[in-house]
């Protein structure tokens, strides 16, 4: 294994290696694994990294998968997803000369950079849009499984709706899975049926079904995507998406390995850092005045006037700000 300085000296001959280990969701999860892959891809195209993806089949694959990358002298290996926290904590010290990155969780090691996201802040903005845009006075949220990360989305969205219009009703449903689009569709249809016209989802691939449901219901029914921009799946029925820029985090940190400016830091990506937010195509369906309103909330969050609840407990005590 070559020490890092050596590599930095000969960037042209020896390609730097970047790699990622997925969690059990694997590629195609329509969530952080895909987003991380996008960032990695960008590093390949723009920075000339040689990239590898190792998909984990089972929980106990995390450690050997990370090691297998370490053994090949991968300059930076990404552990994607909080499920890999323990594994990375164990493996990183074994390869002190190599760098590691972690998504959605934190490991404190001298060669690990961690990136977490304030999903609730981005979700808040979507809640605002939904509350402003609903014609029926009812909006919905579809989650995958009830775990803390999904709670961020749920609570943030709810708080956004409450802030923009406390009279709007929020329906809530969980699929119990992350990979069954048919289930997602069914939950979404139930909410549409109960009067919702806009549904925000944070349910991985189940969300494909949520979007399908909106598409099938036709004009006036909307889905809101998550993690990456999902407009292309149903351009006329996806109102906005909660962007979680895992790709940016991966790309930026990977770039720092090339630059030699890598720091074993905990990066927190919120609205302020542009790590979360609404997607670029939001303006296609959302009128200017609503976007202006959203922008106001964004600023209040960025400068700390609003502290967005990230859990149901915090949501309980959350008082909507007066704009």
């Amino acid at each position, binding site marked *: 294994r070559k020490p890092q300085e050596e590599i930095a000296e000969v960037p042209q001959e020896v390609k730097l290696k970047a790699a990622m280990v997925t969690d059990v969701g*694997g*590629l*195609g*999860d*329509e969530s952080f694994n*895909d987003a991380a892959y996008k960032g990695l891809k960008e590093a390949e195209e723009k920075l000339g990294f040689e990239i590898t993806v190792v*998909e984990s089949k089972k929980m106990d694959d995390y450690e050997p998968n990370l090691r297998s990358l370490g053994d090949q002298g991968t300059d930076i290996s990404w552990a994607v997803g909080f499920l890999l926290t323990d594994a990375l904590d164990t493996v990183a010290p074994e390869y002190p000369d190599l760098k590691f990155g972690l998504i959605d969780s934190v490991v404190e090691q001298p060669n690990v950079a961690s990136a977490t996201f304030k999903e609730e802040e981005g979700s808040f903005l979507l809640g605002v849009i939904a509350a402003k845009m609903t014609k029926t006075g009812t909006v*919905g949220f579809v989650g995958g499984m*009830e775990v803390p990360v999904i709670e961020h989305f749920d609570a943030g969205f709810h708080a956004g709706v409450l802030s923009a219009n406390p009279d709007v*009703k*929020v*329906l*809530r*449903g*969980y699929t*119990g*899975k992350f*990979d*069954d*689009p*048919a*289930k997602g*569709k*069914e*939950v979404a*249809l*139930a*909410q549409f*049926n*109960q009067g919702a016209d806009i549904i925000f989802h944070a349910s991985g*691939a189940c969300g*494909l*079904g949520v979007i*399908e449901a909106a598409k099938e219901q036709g004009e006036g029914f909307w889905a809101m995507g998550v993690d990456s921009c999902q407009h292309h*799946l*149903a351009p006329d029925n996806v109102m906005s998406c909660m962007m979680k820029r895992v790709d940016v985090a991966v790309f930026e940190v990977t770039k720092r390995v090339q630059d030699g400016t890598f720091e074993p830091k905990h990066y927190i990506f919120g609205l302020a850092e542009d790590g979360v937010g609404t997607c670029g195509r939001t303006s296609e369906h959302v009128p200017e005045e609503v976007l202006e309103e959203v922008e106001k909330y964004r600023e209040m969050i960025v400068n700390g006037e609003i502290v967005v609840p990230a859990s149901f407990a915090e949501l309980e005590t959350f008082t909507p700000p007066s704009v």
Partner: protein
Amino acid sequence: METGNLADVTIYIALVVSTLRMATPLILAGLGGVFSERSGVVNIALEGIMLISAFMGMLISYYTEAPWLGVLSAVASGVLVALILAVACVRYKSNQVVVGTAINIFSLGFTGFMLRKVFEHAGQSPPVTKVADWTIPLIHKIPVIGPMIGKHTPFVYIAIVAAVISNHVLFETKLGLRIRAVGEHPKAAETVGVDVFAIRYLCVLLSGALAGLAGASLSLGFLSQFRENMTGGRGFIALAAMIFGKWTPYGTLGACILFGFADALQILSQTLGLTFIPRDFLLMAPYILTMAALAGVIGRSVPPAASGVPYERQK
């Protein structure tokens, strides 16, 4: 969150509609199971056949933009995969559960592999054209009933009709009599000149065709794309429903509808904000309900006597 109005009739309409939708792939696959097992071949491969068919259906619809062509090829690929089962188990007398398990493992690998190969993308295919919903003339205008059964993806109607036809074939035609005879006592059937092998081939292939339809109903009926492992265990649930339904088409239909209903109820309860039950228990409800129904009401179910037993000609 306030609770929805339980007096509202739309809730019940939604419940019926949702039940039918969720029961449909189960019914189709379950009927496939009925035919196969009635002829004496355990088809544990329903899950795998569904998955491969869902993929092939999507693929053909993707290339031709003709969704019904996709459905047709889903059925054809279902038959083709079932042919593996038939050749291995009917002709070469392999253990049916083993071959079925192999097909299930294969289907996951194969569809995942092909997805990446064809679309260079993991997880799911791009959206494809799906089959359009059918509106039943007149009926869809009737109040309450209309919204319940008047407009659905064609697979819903196909599934119900398939159950009726299956029941007719199995219990009111001579083919059905022979199928049941072969599943109960193949040697006796052979002594009266029934071709045991032909019947078993036919039934296993038919089972593949029905499971193929079930797969197509997922990727071209309810959704318009393929997603890795999108069957999500429905093949196994269908198998359970078939046993629950005592190996009869109507029994299976009923069991699938019960299962779909429990699931629809579960989703509706969430939507209505009935949160006094922990959500995880709501999610478990369909499974618990099935077990309770079996233990409390249905009880013993006896499979066709020769189910799972390869038939050997003497000499």
